């Protein structure tokens, strides 16, 4: 019997990762809902929402690691796909408010009433249905990535030039979404959400469910990435990363491969954004800020590029540090610390946390093996080698 395509690729670290995420995804919501408030083991709701945010960031980090760690495409605009997924979900949440908004208009969201929109813009239609919004969460980032990638990869834009145009893309979207007449709430964005699928977004139960769903999505995203990178396609991606023209002269259509992973990665980033928005309660143009995308790349670098587990870990570690430091007296210095972190990781841990750890383990194993061999030779039990 051949193992399923999603599970054949699991090694030990991957299995541990899935078990930990699944465990947290179950235990944290249960502890939040079942244990009495104030109990030592009870996870307060604000922490559930915070951890949910981390899980979404981890999905974004995985999507960046897939293209950067394995295919060498350094996108400094991946936050755009995350934000687009978030906006698609935000539009659904806005339409669910109905007549409970400040102006009580049953169709138009508050900002449209305020800005004197006569009617709902055409691109807001359909977002009252969850399935439609969920589809758009994947399709819109996917389509943008496909068009962008088709143009960029076919023209063989690579390296730093590609990074710069991805920055330009997210910056252009930032400016567009800031405009009031663009139809997405201008600089206030979309907020004041009430319900998701009929459940109150503020309720403990909904938050716990959203957290559990984010963990599930993280596991699924991880499995998809693992399946891709351990397939033969994954070997082609690494080949492209290491020697692009060699791969081309072997008869591989490099641009198709890049387009495939770039689009897949953007869809995953979109899903991450969609799960993020109901948990933080707002989506505004600042999510498109170029700095956000760069920060996400730093998470991956810190955790370990090309390791998947490391990317997710890096997202959680750096964001935990961010939460910790920005809520204390060190808050004004956070950006300096982030910059210093990036420089230190690049200089001291170029393989990131997970990459360095596995390299250390490999070398220890190799030393042990060598020691065992030399010990065996000294004892005279080693195989006799006539050549020596």
């Amino acid at each position, binding site marked *: 019997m051949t193992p399923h395509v999603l599970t054949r690729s699991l090694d030990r670290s991957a299995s541990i990762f899935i078990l930990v995420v699944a465990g947290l995804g179950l235990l944290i919501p249960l502890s939040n809902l079942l244990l009495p408030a104030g109990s030592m083991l009870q996870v307060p709701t604000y922490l559930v929402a915070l951890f949910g945010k981390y899980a979404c960031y981890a999905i974004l980090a995985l999507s960046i690691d897939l293209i950067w760690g394995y295919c060498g495409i350094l996108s400094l605009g991946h936050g755009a796909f995350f934000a687009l997924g978030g906006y698609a979900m935000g539009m659904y949440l806005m339409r669910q408010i109905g007549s409970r908004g400040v102006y009580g208009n049953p169709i138009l969201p508050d900002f449209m009433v305020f800005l004197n929109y006569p009617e709902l813009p055409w691109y807001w239609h359909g977002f009252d249905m969850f399935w439609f919004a969920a589809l758009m969460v994947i399709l819109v980032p996917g389509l943008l990535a496909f068009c962008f990638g088709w143009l960029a990869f076919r023209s063989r834009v690579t390296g730093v030039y590609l990074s710069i145009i991805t920055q330009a893309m997210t910056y252009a979207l930032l400016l567009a979404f800031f405009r009031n007449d663009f139809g997405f709430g201008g600089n206030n964005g979309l907020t004041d959400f009430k319900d998701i699928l009929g459940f109150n977004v503020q309720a403990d139960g909904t938050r716990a469910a959203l957290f559990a769903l984010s963990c599930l999505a993280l596991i699924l995203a991880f499995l998809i990435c693992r399946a891709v990178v351990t397939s033969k396609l994954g070997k082609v991606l*690494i080949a492209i990363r290491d020697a692009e023209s060699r791969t*081309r002269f072997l008869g591989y259509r490099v641009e198709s491969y890049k387009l495939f992973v770039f689009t897949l990665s953007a869809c995953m980033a979109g899903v991450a954004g969609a799960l993020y928005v109901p948990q933080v309660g707002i989506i505004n143009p600042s999510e498109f800020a170029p700095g956000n995308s760069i920060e996400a790349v730093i998470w991956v670098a810190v955790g370990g590029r090309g390791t998947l587990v490391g990317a997710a870990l890096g997202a959680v570690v750096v964001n935990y540090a961010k939460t910790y430091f920005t809520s204390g007296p060190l808050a004004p210095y956070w950006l300096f610390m982030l910059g210093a972190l990036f420089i230190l990781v690049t200089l001291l841990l170029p393989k990131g946390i997970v990459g360095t750890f596995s390299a250390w383990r490999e070398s220890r194993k190799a030393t042990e093996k060598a020691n065992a061999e030399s010990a065996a030779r000294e004892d005279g039990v080693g195989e006799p080698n006539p050549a020596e």
Partner: protein
Amino acid sequence: MSVMEGRTTSALLYLDGVHVSFDGFHAINNLSLTLEPGEMRAIIGPNGAGKTTMMDIITGKTKPDEGTVLFDGMTDLTRLDETQIAELGIGRKFQKPTVFESQTIEDNLLLALNVDHSVKGTLFWRGNRNESERIDRVLETIRLTDARNRLAGSLSHGQKQWLEIGMLLAQDPKLLLVDEPVAGMTDVETHQTAELLKKINKEKTVMVVEHDMTFVRQLGVKVTCLHEGTVLAEGTIDQVSSNERVIEVYLGR
């Protein structure tokens, strides 16, 4: 579109009146050259003679400004890109050995096999016995069977050259373009490489660019000397190396 009505030449590779210039520098100047099926040809010439540029033209990396480049008498290579040309059956070894350093030797060869190269094909790829047998055969030919699970980056320079030749074999092309295969090799390795190329030539057409005259002599094949982007002399190694012009621009007195 890129396939002609009928065969115009019996040659496997046919270059006629090819011109390329980069910013006014004429890298290739009215170059005409034919390679018959099954032939092995050595290309020599001083630095800047256009040897590598010629390979770039044949493999689609550089488009000529003028001239005809036909493969198999039928296919106009100037209209195709690198991927299409590779799939037609032209393999190329680079001047600097280029292998996938962070992958194992076996994976390097697996990637080189001329099987389905589409995104879908590789995503749902499953190994089969035919493929692993082909890899085993190539590993034996290039004498890297014992190193199959080592990372290609850990190989010596000479072994990398061999691995890259092995990748060409796995690609199973009709025509092999081999750019400086013995650069940086010891005398023994150079000798072995000449033998390997002769063995490969029993089944395939080969074009070798090389500076090492001992090696070229050992190959014992027709030699073409390029100079300033055009053919200076052509013939046996003895004819070419006694040619006045060749001695003047390349071999030295």
